[in-house]
């Protein structure tokens, strides 16, 4: 998928921010829960330490320390219930310490003695050598007439940690799943929302200069997309108008130019054929006539172009053999090549059926050959070839002439463009020959391209679809 598409970016942002929020929430939840559970444990242990102090140690004078130790052991069964209990005198000597738990989950000897503390109650968290954690609540018990005791009550954090681990696992698995579901859902939603955009894009792509009268489909949904397609349609309408106007202008202008040209030519011809005309005058009249004819030619070709632009080539549509057309055209033009000592070879063996306007397609061959002959010096070589390649008919005109400069190459099909202002050609061209080739090719859904290396030669290639019965 295109990483710059709106769908992708929208879904990525949306899934990304949701994932971040989820992770944050889960982390908060996890940390808070851990804090709460540990705290709860501590308080429970402190309560038990207080219990030992308030029920046993308070009477230690009467009962003796041994009683306290045995009672503690009986009540809490530290070895069975994995508890750590220690009672020390203020001087640090031991009254009672619980034994190692039966399941060997920890070693009580690992719990270091507490330093003398002034606080009445405090906690500590010990990391044991087997990787477990012990929460140890301590209580300083002092009462009248006894030396003061330190009661410690500890328990492993195991159950809490097991629960937290489980929660962590659930979150770690659930989070990607949730993000995945959200991503897929978001993708489907966005795609559905953007489907009309795809439609509009496809419709817009199918609109070219030849079907500017067509419009995009407008879904009457009242949303932004309806506005977009309406706006695009208005733009196409404006384009259509502008294009029609410019075509009409060219047609009208050519038409308006023809009448005065008729008069100019008529008058000049009459003059030129006047008997006993002063030779100098006759020379000037002839020169004027030549210019008038050149002008007529330009007007004619402009009109041809504007008619092709308007799609008028389709009037004489028929199936024809491009190879045969190329061969006969090359024969008809062979003298032009011979005149410059240029060898003109036509490679067109097999019939290559195409569909189109014969006169127009022939004009393509004529213009390309004429161009090649014009820009190939004496004793050069021109090769015209027609082949069927896959589903295409390929016509090529290759010469070893002057070639076309790199910067001029993209413009050779532009109207009135001349690749070489100081060309060796006769300068009588109109600068429209290749534009006409291009326009005819467009009318035939054909591609035309030029490849050239200056002073090595040029190759023009026309590719049009083969005709299938």
């Amino acid at each position: 998928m295109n990483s710059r598409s709106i769908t992708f970016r929208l879904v990525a942002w949306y899934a990304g921010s949701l994932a971040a929020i989820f992770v944050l929430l889960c982390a908060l939840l996890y940390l808070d829960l851990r804090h709460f559970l540990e705290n709860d444990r501590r308080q429970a242990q402190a309560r038990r330490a207080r219990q030992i102090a308030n029920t046993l140690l308070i009477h230690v004078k009467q009962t003796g320390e041994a009683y306290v130790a045995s009672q503690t052991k009986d009540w809490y069964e530290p070895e069975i219930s994995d508890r750590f209990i220690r009672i020390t005198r203020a001087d640090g000597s031991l009254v009672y310490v619980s034994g190692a738990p039966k399941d060997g989950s920890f070693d009580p000897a690992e719990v270091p003695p507490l330093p003398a503390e002034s606080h009445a109650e405090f906690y500590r968290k010990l990391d044991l050598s087997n990787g477990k954690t012990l929460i140890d609540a301590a209580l300083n018990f002092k009462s009248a007439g006894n030396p003061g005791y330190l009661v410690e009550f500890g328990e492993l954090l195991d159950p809490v940690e097991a629960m937290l681990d489980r929660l962590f696992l659930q979150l770690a698995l659930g989070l990607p799943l949730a993000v995945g579901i959200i991503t897929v859902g978001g993708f489907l939603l966005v795609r559905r929302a953007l489907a009309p955009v795809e439609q509009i894009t496809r419709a817009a792509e199918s609109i070219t200069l030849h079907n500017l009268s067509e419009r995009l489909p407008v879904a009457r949904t009242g949303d932004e997309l309806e506005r977009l397609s309406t706006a695009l349609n208005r733009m196409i309408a404006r384009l259509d108008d502008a294009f029609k106007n410019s075509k009409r202008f060219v047609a009208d202008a050519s038409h308006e130019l023809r009448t005065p040209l008729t008069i100019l030519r008529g008058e000049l011809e009459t003059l030129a054929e006047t008997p006993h005309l002063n030779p100098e005058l006759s020379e000037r009249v002839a020169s004027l006539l030549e210019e008038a004819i050149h002008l007529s030619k330009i007007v004619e070709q402009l009109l041809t172009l504007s008619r092709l632009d308007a799609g008028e080539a389709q009037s004489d549509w028929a199936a024809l053999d491009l190879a045969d057309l190329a061969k006969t055209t090359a024969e008809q033009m062979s003298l032009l090549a011979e005149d410059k000592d240029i060898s003109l070879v036509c490679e067109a063996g097999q019939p290559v059926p195409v569909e189109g306007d014969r006169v127009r397609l022939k004009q393509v061959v004529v213009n390309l050959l004429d161009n090649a002959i014009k820009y190939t010096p004496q004793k050069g070589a021109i090769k015209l070839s027609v082949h069927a390649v896959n589903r295409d008919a390929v016509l090529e005109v290759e010469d070893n002439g002057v070639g076309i400069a790199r910067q001029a190459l993209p413009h050779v099909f532009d109207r009135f463009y001349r690749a070489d202002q100081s060309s060796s050609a006769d300068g009588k061209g109109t600068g429209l020959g290749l534009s006409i080739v291009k326009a005819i090719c467009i009318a035939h859904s054909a591609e035309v391209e030029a490849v050239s290396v200056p002073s090595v030669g040029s190759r023009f290639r026309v590719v049009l679809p083969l005709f299938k019965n």
Partner: protein
Amino acid sequence: MRILLVEDEKKVADIIERGLKAERFAVDICHNGRDGWQMANTYDYDLLILDLMLPEMSGTEILEKVRRKNQSVPILILTARDGMADKVKNFESGADDYLTKPFAFAELLVRVKALLRRGPVNRSSLLRVGDLEIDRLSQNVRRAGKKIELTAKEYGLLEYLATHPGRVFSRTMIIEHVWDQSFQGLTNIVDVYVRHLREKVDDPFTTKLLRTVRGVGYSLSDEVPA
């Protein structure tokens, strides 16, 4: 021979009138469609030359009205628009020929004469210009009794020029007759062929038959140039 010319451009009409009168035709001129139709309806003409874009009534309308009367008078259309659709429509309405502006007067004249079946369609199988003989059946060309070998196109060109000895043919006319529409704009091809033709037909002889009328075209004639 009487010709009606309906053309609103006075200068164009003037040129055509002068040219046709020089060829000894009687020419009537109208500058708008309504007058044109009245004249065409009132008098008997041998040929109508109609411009298409006319004030008050278009050339096409006149054409249709004349044809509705089922007149067999030949009609030549002049137009500054040459869209295929226009052309087809006018031929369907009964036009006999169609000429697009700007044109060489020589071209108009050839077409006029062809329509009047006077002279131009030289159907005889042997054409003669001076000591040049063209046998249209065998396509043999002889000059002063000597056979001249010509290519097909050279022969076509020579025969076309020989159909109207002395008449000047424009390059455009030659291309349309000897080549085809696709070669339009490629007028230098005519020059090259004429040069080759000259080498074979004129160079070995003292009298030159092929003439160049600069800016206009070529002609074949044995008359001494003025």
